[in-house]
């Protein structure tokens, strides 16, 4: 071997060691692994992964054409960065051995010791790696969701740093609070089947904070801010709906009756959410819109997320029917009233719908559905509702403070927004040097 080559190899080898990734036997299955459960959760992970591109289209169709690549790119960036961050440190912070009920320890750094053996604490019938994968997809979409709040104005380089800081400092600890063994919200008895607080409230609230800090999009002299491609948004909503089955049913962590139940109530609430939103539009505007139906689907999905393993199908209908109009009200009245520019309603749908869902879980939960759950208000246990409220407040409070901190810190380094002129020209050209569409013959040269 040439010395130069040898040197390169040594460096690479050193990188590997620094990354701390052990060379352990992943192929070997531990006892207790069930192939059906494993197949199910692996495929569910793929489904959840598809939600982020779905979100990219859902959001992408709603922005003006000059910003469509920038918003899609933000979702891709979340996928790309969090995928690596999760392997290196994120999983460990979320699910490593508990530290003060607040965050996971560093034992799983670089997925050290995570292999084919099930994690008995988290998912005893599937390889530990499958649990890691499944959770990774949740971390990805959460930070991608936030991008809807400050769409069409944030500098791409700021976004890159924001993603890394937010997922590490906000998402990972929150995941530990709610799902980690000995996390304080979990210990308290807060119910969050598939991530209502961790995913939706945290991203929705952070989005609200971020759009307040960045300020509204320039409106004078701007073309009207209407969605540039609604069929794209509809496709995105459909992919979100599809992937959400993986999100909620997969959270049963096995191919069980509970998974089927979660799937059923998820679908039911999505449908009821669309009915509720479209009905509200029909009453108020005289016409139900396609964007409204799609938004209602998402509202229904958000609302049922914490509840999917704990409530009945009829409760899911009620929750969806309430969540739709509630979010419609948030995006059409609340936003105008308080005059913040949550461009694509990350707060209006994920924040509001998530808070509603967390509280509704406290109302509708019943152990008849899931003996591992807790009864809610309607079953005569008002206590759960208070616990849920506490979880909501803790999540919202933590997410707000941290997001303010992160963004204020970033402001010291560089402006968060693109210049007015760049905003005018559009982020696709100015941040990425690309034009999304070149249909016509009079195309660039």
């Amino acid at each position, binding site marked *: 071997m040439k010395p130069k080559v040898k040197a390169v190899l040594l460096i690479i080898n050193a990188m590997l060691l620094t990354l701390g990734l052990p060379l352990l036997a992943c192929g070997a299955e531990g006892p207790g692994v069930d192939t059906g459960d494993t197949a199910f959760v692996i495929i569910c992970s793929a489904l959840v992964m598809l939600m982020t591109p779905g979100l990219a289209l859902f959001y992408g169709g709603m922005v003006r054409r000059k910003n469509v690549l920038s918003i899609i790119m933000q979702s891709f960036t979340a996928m790309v960065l969090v995928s690596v961050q999760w392997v290196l440190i994120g999983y460990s912070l979320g699910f490593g051995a508990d530290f003060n009920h607040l965050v996971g320890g560093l034992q799983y750094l670089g997925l050290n010791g995570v292999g084919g053996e099930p994690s008995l604490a988290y998912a005893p019938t599937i390889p530990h790696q499958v649990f890691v994968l499944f959770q990774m997809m949740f971390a990805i979409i959460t930070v991608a969701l936030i991008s809807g709040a400050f769409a069409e104005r944030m500098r791409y380089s700021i976004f890159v740093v924001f993603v890394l800081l937010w997922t590490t400092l906000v998402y990972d600890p929150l995941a530990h609070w709610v799902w980690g063994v000995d996390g304080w919200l979990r210990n308290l008895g807060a119910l969050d089947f598939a991530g209502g607080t961790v995913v939706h409230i945290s991203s929705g609230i952070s989005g609200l904070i971020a759009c307040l800090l960045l300020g509204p999009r320039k409106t004078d002299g701007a073309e009207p801010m209407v969605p540039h491609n609604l069929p794209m948004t509809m496709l995105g909503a459909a992919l979100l709906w599809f992937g959400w089955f993986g999100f909620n049913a997969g959270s049963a962590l096995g191919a069980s009756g509970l998974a089927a139940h979660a799937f059923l109530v998820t679908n039911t609430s999505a449908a009821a959410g669309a009915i509720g939103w479209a009905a509200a*539009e029909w009453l108020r505007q005289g016409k139900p819109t396609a964007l409204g139906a799609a938004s209602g689907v998402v509202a229904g999905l958000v609302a049922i997320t914490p509840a999917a393993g704990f409530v009945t199908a009829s409760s899911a209908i009620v929750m969806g029917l309430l969540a739709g109009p509630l979010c419609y009200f948030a995006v059409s009245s609340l936003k105008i009233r308080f005059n913040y520019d949550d461009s694509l309603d990350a707060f209006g749908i994920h924040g509001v719908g998530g808070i509603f869902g967390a509280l509704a879980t406290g109302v509708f939960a019943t152990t008849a559905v899931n003996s591992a759950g807790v009864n809610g208000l309607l079953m005569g246990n008002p206590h759960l509702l208070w616990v849920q409220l506490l979880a909501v407040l803790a999540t919202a409070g933590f997410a707000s403070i941290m997001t303010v901190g992160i963004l204020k810190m970033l402001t010291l380094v560089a402006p968060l927004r693109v210049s007015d002129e760049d905003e005018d020209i559009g982020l696709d050209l100015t941040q990425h040097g690309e034009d999304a569409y070149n249909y016509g013959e009079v195309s660039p040269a």
Partner: protein
Amino acid sequence: MQKIEAIIRPSKLEDLKAALENIQIRGMTASEVKGRGLQNNQKQYYRGREVSVDLNPKIKVEIVCHDESVENIISTIINSCRTGKHGDGKIFVYPLERVIRISTREEGAAAL
């Protein structure tokens, strides 16, 4: 020679083409434009926000023709594109200095 420029409703283009063929007029150039005037705005809704659209889709048809055909073409346009409501559009007539066909370099009447 003159250029007749008609701003019409998109749904009338097919009728207009047929009507013009009846009077032996085939050459034309069409393009998509948006117009405002006395026609009512459209209402659109996006997440509860009402957007009032004051530029309506129209088609601009340009026909260059001999002076003597102008009258005939204008009445053909009116007959085939008129609904009587605001938004039917306008006809503008412009003077033209020269017309040349690229493929043959012919000029004037021969170029049409």
